[in-house]
């Protein structure tokens, strides 16, 4: 066999920080602030509903697009929370996590040569999924001075005749940035004028601490050119259930459903039954978790101020993104030294795009007690670095 593997797949860049994570996984006694999933268990009544569905013997496939009850509840939820309406039958699909929705969304939209605008720093799968779908990724480097929000000017400057899709990843992993209504209105104007499509990854929509999350699909003239991706992993602490969804114009959802049907068949049945319960009776749990994250967020920002570590105030997800440029190290060097000397793992910003250089992603999906220990060590480390660099504190 001369050419065993797909050239396209072989050419995909492996994660730039694989080496760093190899060290993390070998260091058993390290405290990790690197995890990107909630520390809460799925609320019990939701788990219970999953268990009940198993007891009842609901172990069959669901329809390809997902349980009707769940899709109806999703439509109610989106109307209630974000004032956007979808037809459950034609405009929704249940997927295996938000990540599947990203993949099949791009595959349904792209033709060879189509350019996909990807704001970075952002979740790692947009770029490879674009390439696998035959598109060409075009990176928009977001800036700290804009609190890592996408501006209309940045968007306009990146658009060419080949631009087809903008990925809109807010609230953002890894920066914690959000887009407020006025930010969205500004970019929506450009999107409509230049006639491009939006894949809006709103998986962190429940974790927004300044104002309720606004979906771009709710803005005038945007519903017909947006696929909204969301899911249960972050807001409802259901990562392991692998359940997400996409809502958008029927013609796009129809094609996405085709790919989903051939590649996946349907999302896990147990998870779908549990998710119905999450949407019907989960608001209080989400509120409780959001409050807890917000308290930790405030604690971290305060601690950074105290130790003199610059960090813009992020209002979303469960990440903070402090800047470590002043120490004259790369993000990976900083993270590696911090891990070796203080046994705390944080993720170098460069894991999420080159423009993440100079930053660290610190997750606060950890109890305050754990955060305190880790922050004590970070403070000690920063102090040591400042002394080494001959700076006064």
């Amino acid at each position, binding site marked *: 066999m001369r050419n065993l593997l797909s050239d396209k797949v072989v050419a995909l860049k492996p994660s730039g*920080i694989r080496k760093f994570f190899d060290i993390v*996984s070998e260091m058993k006694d390290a405290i990790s602030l690197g995890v990107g999933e909630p*520390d809460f268990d799925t609320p019990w009544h939701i788990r219970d509903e999953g268990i009940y569905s198993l007891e009842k013997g609901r172990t069959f496939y669901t329809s390809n697009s997902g349980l009707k009850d769940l899709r109806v509840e999703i439509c109610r939820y989106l109307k209630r929370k974000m004032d956007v309406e979808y037809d459950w039958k034609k405009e929704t699909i249940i997927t295996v996590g938000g990540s599947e929705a990203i993949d099949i969304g791009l595959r349904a939209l792209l033709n060879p040569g189509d350019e996909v605008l990807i704001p970075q720093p952002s*979740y790692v799968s947009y770029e490879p999924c674009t390439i696998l779908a035959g598109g060409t990724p075009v990176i928009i480097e977001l800036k700290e001075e804009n609190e890592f929000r996408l501006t209309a000017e940045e968007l306009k400057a990146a658009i060419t005749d080949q631009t087809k899709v903008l990925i809109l990843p807010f609230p953002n992993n890894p920066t914690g940035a959000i887009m407020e209504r006025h930010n969205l209105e500004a970019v929506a104007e450009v999107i409509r004028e230049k006639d491009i499509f939006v894949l809006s990854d709103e998986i962190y929509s429940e974790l927004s601490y300044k104002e309720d999350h606004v979906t771009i699909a709710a803005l005038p003239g945007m519903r017909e050119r947006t696929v909204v991706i969301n899911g249960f992993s972050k807001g409802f602490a259901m990562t392991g259930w692998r359940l997400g969804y996409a809502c958008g114009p029927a013609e796009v959802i129809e094609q996405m459903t085709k790919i989903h049907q051939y590649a996946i068949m349907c999302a896990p049945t147990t998870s779908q039954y549990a998710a119905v319960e999450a949407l019907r009776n989960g608001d209080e749990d989400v509120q409780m978790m959001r409050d807890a994250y917000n308290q930790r967020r*405030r604690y971290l920002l305060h601690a950074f101020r105290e130790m003199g570590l610059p960090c813009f105030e992020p209002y979303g997800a469960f990440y903070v993104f402090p800047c470590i440029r002043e120490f004259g190290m790369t993000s990976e060097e900083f993270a590696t030294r911090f891990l070796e000397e203080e046994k705390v793992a944080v993720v170098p910003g460069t894991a999420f795009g080159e423009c993440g250089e100079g930053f660290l992603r610190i997750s606060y999906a950890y109890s305050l007690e754990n955060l305190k220990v880790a922050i004590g060590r970070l403070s000690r480390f920063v102090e040591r670095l400042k002394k080494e660099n001959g700076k006064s504190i």
Partner: protein
Amino acid sequence: MREKILQIVEKNSRINLSELAVILGVEEEDVINEMAAMEEEGVICGYHTLIDWEKTEIEKVSALIEVRVTPQRGQGFDNIAERIYKYPEVNAVYLISGGYDLLVTLEGKSLKEIATFVSDKLSTLESVLSTATHFILKKYKDHGTVLSRKKKDEREIYIP
């Protein structure tokens, strides 16, 4: 702010007030004043520690006692409740709806000590009609906290 403070100190009364102010995003002075006001008003009645006595060498026996009583004219149940809660070995006294009137929780050194309390002190009170004593065999969860096990972080490392 009051509700938020109470939610937090109910779970962790040892949190220091400057930290409490930070995580709630308010001024420390306001937290101090609010806490003082709540103590003054009797909203906050004490700061206790949740102890799993089973993990110590110290012997403790706890019981729940259902008490049926005759309410007194003009006093209702208050007088008899007071008579009962004044005993230092009594932990809690609740007025209950349903098949009996008062629920008394009790802590003693031994089964015998509790039995003596019930037969000598409680049952002999004039308005007490009957009692039913239930001994607690094991505490699984108390004050919203699971006592038996410490939860480990089992999340796995994955490369994003």
